[in-house]
């Protein structure tokens, strides 16, 4: 103890450490503090042995407890499925037209259907279901194949224009480029646009009406009101799946359009199909 260095000003022992002439006073920490530090170090090491921790070139150490977040998620999913099994089978058995908003089953269906929609459908129809050019908006009241719940279930289950499902929806519009003259096409485009827009050329539209009645009315109807049995869109309303410019409409007349949709019945469970149908039906356009 003879070598104790005492700081003159404070009278406190120094540690003997000095930086740039500044002496460190020795105000010792409590020993339990040190033991706490050791304990945390021990805990840290034990933890990395027990649980997945150290990154390796591919993957990581798996830990001796065999814990994995994936297994935990799988367990939770199974638990939720078991918990909802009753609702799911009720949904498969239910008469969908009789589900009313506010019912437990309706709430379950829209929640489950919303999840299915965001995972499977939003890529084409958008996360808010507003669609895009060529991909129908599911929020409005215009439906190619019908907007009641049974029609929606059918469209989703069998898809549109795919060879894999014999019950798929098919619409067959010819490419009129080889059938009509260029000026006839111009005229019929002017005619269909005039049905929903003011300020079109009345003379040209009048000529187009003749072309329309001869070539298009068989599917789209005399008043261009469309035909859901054939998937022929209503051309007299304000909604244009492929755009409302004369160029876009002319392109459709010349080449026809071939929108497709997968048959989800081949990929999703019955309950999922029915849930997502209820969800789509509830978005505001359902009939």
């Amino acid at each position: 103890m003879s070598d104790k260095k005492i700081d003159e000003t404070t009278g406190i022992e120094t540690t003997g450490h000095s930086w740039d002439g500044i002496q460190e006073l020795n105000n010792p920490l409590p020993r339990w503090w040190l033991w706490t530090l050791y304990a945390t170090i021990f805990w840290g090491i034990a933890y990395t042995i027990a649980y997945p921790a150290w990154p390796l070139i591919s993957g990581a150490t798996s830990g001796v407890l065999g814990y994995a977040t994936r297994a935990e998620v799988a367990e939770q999913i199974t638990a939720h499925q078991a918990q909802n099994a009753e609702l799911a089978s009720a949904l498969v058995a239910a008469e969908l037209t009789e589900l009313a908003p506010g019912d437990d089953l309706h709430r379950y269906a829209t929640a489950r259907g919303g999840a299915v929609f965001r995972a499977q459908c939003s890529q084409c129809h958008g996360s808010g279901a507003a669609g895009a050019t060529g991909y129908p908006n599911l929020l409005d009241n215009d439906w190619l194949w019908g907007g009641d719940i049974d029609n929606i279930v059918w469209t989703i289950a069998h898809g549109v224009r795919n060879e894999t499902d014999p019950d798929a929806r098919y619409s067959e519009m010819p490419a009129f480029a080889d059938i009509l003259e260029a000026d006839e096409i111009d005229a019929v485009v002017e005619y269909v646009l005039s049905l929903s827009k003011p300020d079109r050329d009345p003379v040209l539209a009048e000529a187009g009406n003749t072309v329309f009645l001869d070539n298009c009315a068989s599917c789209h109807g005399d008043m261009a009101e469309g035909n859901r049995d054939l998937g022929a869109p209503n051309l007299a309303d304000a909604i244009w799946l492929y755009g409302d410019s004369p160029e876009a409409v002319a392109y459709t007349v010349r080449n026809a359009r071939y929108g497709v949709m997968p048959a989800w019945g081949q990929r999703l469970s019955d309950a999922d199909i029915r849930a997502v149908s209820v969800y789509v039906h509830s978005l505001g356009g359902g009939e």
Partner: protein
Amino acid sequence: MDTPSLYAAREPIFPRRVSGKFRQLKWWIMAITLGIYYLTPWIRWDRGPNLPDQAVLVDLASRRFYFFWIEIWPHEFYFVAGLLIMAGLGLFLFTSALGRVWCGYTCPQTVWTDLFILVERWIEGDRNARLRLHRAGWDVRKWRLRITKWVVWLLIGLATGGAWVFYFTDAPTLLGDLLSFSAHPVAYATIAVLTATTFVFGGFMREQVCIYMCPWPRIQAAMMDSDTITVAYREWRGEPRGKKGTDGAGDCIDCMACVNVCPVGIDIRDGQQMECITCALCIDACDDIMAKIGKPRGLVDYLALSDEPAERAGQAPKPVWRHILRPRTILYTAMWSLIGLGLVYALFIRSDIELTVSPVRNPTYVVQSDGAIRNIYDVRLRNKLGEDRAFRLSLTSDEVLRIDLDDRARNLTLTVPADSTVLQRVYVTARPQDPAAGIDRTDLRLWVEDLGSGDRASRATTFSGKVTP
């Protein structure tokens, strides 16, 4: 050269019993605070059939906080934030006026440590007896005393942890469940952890918690200045220390009473120290000595350091209110009151119908086949009463712009069950020829009316039209 030790074992402290007015005050505060803590969950409050009848309840499962007649929903959590800010400012205010009164009188660490020391003294005797026992070997008597003490401490810890969980669920039910071992494991785990921390912090760590674990001693210096009234030693009166009657000696007879009673083990005569929790026990101890030797009290006292020159010169110190009323305390009081008034105001303007209206902006609008423009809103309605209520929606907007609720919303009666929330999509439409259909933004207001009482509430929102470039 030998290296000095960087770590030191804890020096056990054996505070001596003391009596006096501050000790008396501390007993009272202990009784009141512990009483509030242990008894509050057992106060009943009738809120009607579907709501819990516990006066103070933090219902985490259904996300409600009940405080007597006040019920806080999750979206009103700003009340809790406001109270926490007030608690912080209150601490600033009291610290700048009176030093660490919080630490010395009301801090749970102090209150429980005091209680634990009381038990210790009751079982093992006062300071000298405890010192002797500490040094004695581990014979039967020491084991018996120690085990008795630890068991009582554990029981106090158990009661502490036990009282805590009662704040989170119906207390009588939980007590039954706990006793029949059918309560939720989380309840047992919480009690176990709190029992252990109470036992260790109150029994063994005591002042170590205040000095090394609590951040407040390091921060409080920023709130204090020389006008702060805090525990100090009148050095000009006490020094030089010496036996009573010695020539030229001051009033301090160096009896160490003030040191022996100090729960953090410091000597207040060395001046203000970070460790001091201003518990004033040294004042009681010294006042006792002064009475015995026939000197005026207050050698150790609550005083403001700025008074020292005057006192030294034999003049009267400034009156207490002059120390307490100063810009920083006034500022803290003003801020504290402002927030308090704000919260009280917010509490009184709260309505028991609440709605939020969020326009769906994905997409901003939907074109209907007849060219009409439709907007979608998510309306969240909260019914804070204990009974089901039916509501009807309506709209006010500039008539000229013509915006309407869709038929289904116009004819909608929304029933919101007691004490719950309903989320409803509402559709609002502007016909193609109406101006709002072609304007980027139209203001409108959505109303709900309670069909039973006729009470109304509303929210402003906007309608987005289709703007053709």
